[in-house]
């Protein structure tokens, strides 16, 4: 497996009312380029914290230790329009492997390997990446940038979309910012994206506001915005949990198709192990901030090594589950 | 972190609290430090400050002790400011809660009454009320509250309109709770934080309004008030400016202290709500 990102000893601590709560404890995980990896866990498992940490979206008040190394093509897609059409062309000769950077927003932690002034979070990394990129360092440096290299789909599209901006503009803005397109080009791109996410009547949808769309349609728009810049990695954090079963199945099918077409890597965060098993090639099971078990989907589903994973599997109530109801009782 | 410690980390809030504490100390200690009537003659008229250490801030035109008047004035300012603000907040939140929760005709009637009060400038209303009923401490409190309860009422109503759609209000109805109990037990306590956030501004405004009324001679004539002292000093502004300046400074510091401390409290509690 060629790694897209490699997480080592990642620990994230939140401060809450004076107490420190560890949301993630020394996580080690490789994300393979082009794979569909599901992160499974219940509330408090740290699965969303992991998604935010990878996307560089953790709040500044959190403390982050450990490292996250990216293995991305070294040329940031400053002018490139076309999203990669085939599976990852990431076959990095040693020299092109991007340097690692310390994960940590704004706080302490000096790096062991790098001068302390190196990019400290993907967001900050974007700025220093642009300014230092050519000059100061001999090695080509590349730090992934949220929106361009990482697409993020949140659980609640009503909260992630701007309620007072037409959806066409919201998608075009991503393309305009990251692909170096002119505004008309970006707007045309937005329309083709709305077609790709199968929104009925993309022309009028461009001018629609989020409140005029249904929950499923809003999530399609959010996905269109997430993939607008042709990211290498798509993170879907409980992206279907607020939707009903039918719409959920449609969105899962959409994500599967887009990921395959664009050769994206998918990180699918979910509490639903059955849903994850339908979509992912590998499953990582999280509990209380720890990575309990990681393996191919078939192995996790059929031969889990952890009792907790078995509990999750047994707790699934499928259409073939033994009814809990004792029917004899009713008319007694 | 406890709200107290968060409060103590804000220097402006601490400064406000110190000013406020000094004011409260003045108000409480007045009868002990100056057991006599502050409006009694204590020495020669128009004695400048820092001349006679038994009368540190000098005397006014009638020979009254300025320092004693200042201390007793703090009592009046504080009492009227707090009482008027409390009355305004209480009336406002009850009216706003009833209007927002009941809706329909009740809402319509209550909000039109609110409109009517809001179209008349608050100070004019207070002025008219005191001139008709006559000046006394209680009347001044009511007069000031009359002009200020509308703001809290509107904020409370807006908050209640959003809270009444929440599941826990539906839950209270399902459990069979009486609508009035729902309004005042379930809805009002949760609607209060943004209303209370207005209290620092309202207390500060009430203190200023009281001073303005006293300045115009509509304060309680039997009490020392800072507004009254300024008005008294106005006649000799050229020869004895300290008579107006001293109570003026006291007024400014009080309003500043109330405002800074109030904002500090609101901010620290708001942070706590945001976290939970």
């Amino acid at each position: 497996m060629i790694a897209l990102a490699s997480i080592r000893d990642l620990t994230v601590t939140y401060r809450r009312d004076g107490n420190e709560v560890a949301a993630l404890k020394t996580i080690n995980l490789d994300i393979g380029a082009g794979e569909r990896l599901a992160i499974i866990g219940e509330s408090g498992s740290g699965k969303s914290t992991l998604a935010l940490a990878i996307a560089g979206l953790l709040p500044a008040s959190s403390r982050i230790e450990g490292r996250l190394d990216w293995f991305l093509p070294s040329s940031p897609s400053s002018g490139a329009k076309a999203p990669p059409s085939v599976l990852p062309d990431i076959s990095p000769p040693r020299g092109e492997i991007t340097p690692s950077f310390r994960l940590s927003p704004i706080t302490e932690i000096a790096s062991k390997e790098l001068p302390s002034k190196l990019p400290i979070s993907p967001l900050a990394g974007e700025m220093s990446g642009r300014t230092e990129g050519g000059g100061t360092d001999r090695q080509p440096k590349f730090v992934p940038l949220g929106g361009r290299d990482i697409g993020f789909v949140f659980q609640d599209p009503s909260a992630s979309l701007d309620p007072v901006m037409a959806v066409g503009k919201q998608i075009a803005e991503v393309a305009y910012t990251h692909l170096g397109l002119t505004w008309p080009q970006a707007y045309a791109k937005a329309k083709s994206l709305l077609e790709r996410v199968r929104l009925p009547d993309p022309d009028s949808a461009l001018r629609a506001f989020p409140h005029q769309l249904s929950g499923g349609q809003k999530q399609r728009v959010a996905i269109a915005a997430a993939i607008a810049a042709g990211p290498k990695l798509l993170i879907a954090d409980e992206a279907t949990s607020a939707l009903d079963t039918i719409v959920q199945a449609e969105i899962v099918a959409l994500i599967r198709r887009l990921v395959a077409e664009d050769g994206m890597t998918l990180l699918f965060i979910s509490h639903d192990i059955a849903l994850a098993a339908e979509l992912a090639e590998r499953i990582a099971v999280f509990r209380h901030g720890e990575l309990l078990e990681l393996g191919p989907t078939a192995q996790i589903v059929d031969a889990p090594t952890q009792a907790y994973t078995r509990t999750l599997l047994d707790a699934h109530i499928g259409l073939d589950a033994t009814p809990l109801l004792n029917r004899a009782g009713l008319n007694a | 972190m406890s709200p107290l410690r968060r409060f103590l980390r804000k220097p402006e809030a601490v400064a406000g609290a110190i000013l406020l504490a000094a004011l409260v100390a003045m108000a409480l200690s007045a009868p002990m430090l100056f057991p006599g009537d502050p409006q009694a003659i204590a020495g020669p008229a128009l004695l400048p400050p820092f001349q006679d250490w038994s009368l540190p801030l000098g005397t006014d035109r009638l020979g009254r002790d300025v320092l004693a008047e200042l201390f007793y004035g703090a009592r009046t300012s504080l009492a009227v400011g707090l009482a008027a603000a409390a009355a305004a907040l209480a009336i406002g939140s009850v009216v706003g809660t009833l209007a927002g929760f009941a809706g329909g005709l009740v809402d319509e009637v209550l909000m039109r009454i609110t409109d009517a009060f809001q179209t008349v400038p608050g100070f004019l209303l207070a002025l008219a009320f005191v001139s008709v009923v006559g000046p006394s401490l209680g009347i001044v409190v009511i007069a000031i509250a009359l002009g200020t309860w509308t703001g809290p009422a509107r904020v409370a109503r807006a908050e209640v309109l959003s809270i009444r759609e929440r599941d826990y209000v539906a839950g209270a109805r399902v459990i069979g709770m009486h609508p009035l109990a729902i309004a005042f037990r379930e809805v009002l306590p949760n609607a209060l934080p943004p209303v209370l956030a207005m209290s620092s501004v309202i207390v500060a405004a009430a203190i200023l309004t009281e001073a303005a009324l006293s300045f115009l001679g509509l304060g309680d004539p039997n009490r020392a008030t800072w507004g009254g002292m300024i008005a008294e000093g106005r006649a000799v502004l050229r020869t004895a400016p300290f008579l107006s300046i001293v109570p003026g400074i006291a007024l400014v510091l009080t309003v500043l202290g109330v405002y800074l401390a109030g904002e500090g409290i609101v901010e620290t509690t708001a942070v706590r709500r945001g976290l939970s």
Partner: protein
Amino acid sequence: MNLLTVSNLTKRYRRGGKTIAAVDDISFHIEPGETLALAGPSGSGKSTIARLVLRLIEPDAGHIEFEGNDFLALSGAALRQRRARLQMVFQDPLAAFNPRSTVARLLDDPLRIHGIAARAERPRRIAALLERVGLAADLAPRAIHEISGGQRQRVAIARAIATKPSLIVLDEAVSALDVSVRGQILELLLDLQRQERIAYLFISHDLGVVRAIAHRVVLLEAGEIAECGDARTVIDAPQSAIGKALVAAAPRLNRTRP
């Protein structure tokens, strides 16, 4: 005799000048001790029906008969009194409780309002209710936001059974729970049904759960009944288009060694 009979229930909303029937001429009944599930996609009207049955909103047309009486004819004190028999558990137990309340206060409310226990006796009753739903009695003084989601939903169930209802509306009551907690809550609901003969109106979009817990199911689409019948029969072989779509969309866990 039926516990609840809903006939020709209709609720319309006006949206952008158009009138939409959220619930369109719906009729169904529930027998004592029975679980009837309402299932359907979002916007099918299942939550509106729950709120109509609970008189949280008023219908535009139709009848609701509960325990042999015209439930829609009740108002004021008579309605509040009758509410003791018809309770509800919400989806999100955090949103369903006053954020300032403690567990004890939440359970005290129904006992006080319906005069079930004298003041001195209430702490004992609250402890008994907590134990009935599998919680420790010393949870009573805790604030509602201090306890876990599963514990909160148990408190919600304790509050619902405090007035000894004959029918509880469960509006997506297990959808927001962690799967490991969900099974325990379903077991608790079934146990209560067996012991106290409580009927449930179980609203859910999850056909797997519906099939596991309900006697009968009503499948809804766009405010109308698409299909109804024995829960297992309907879900194992749906006849309506929406039934087929719901079944096809349910996630499947293909385990070779369950």
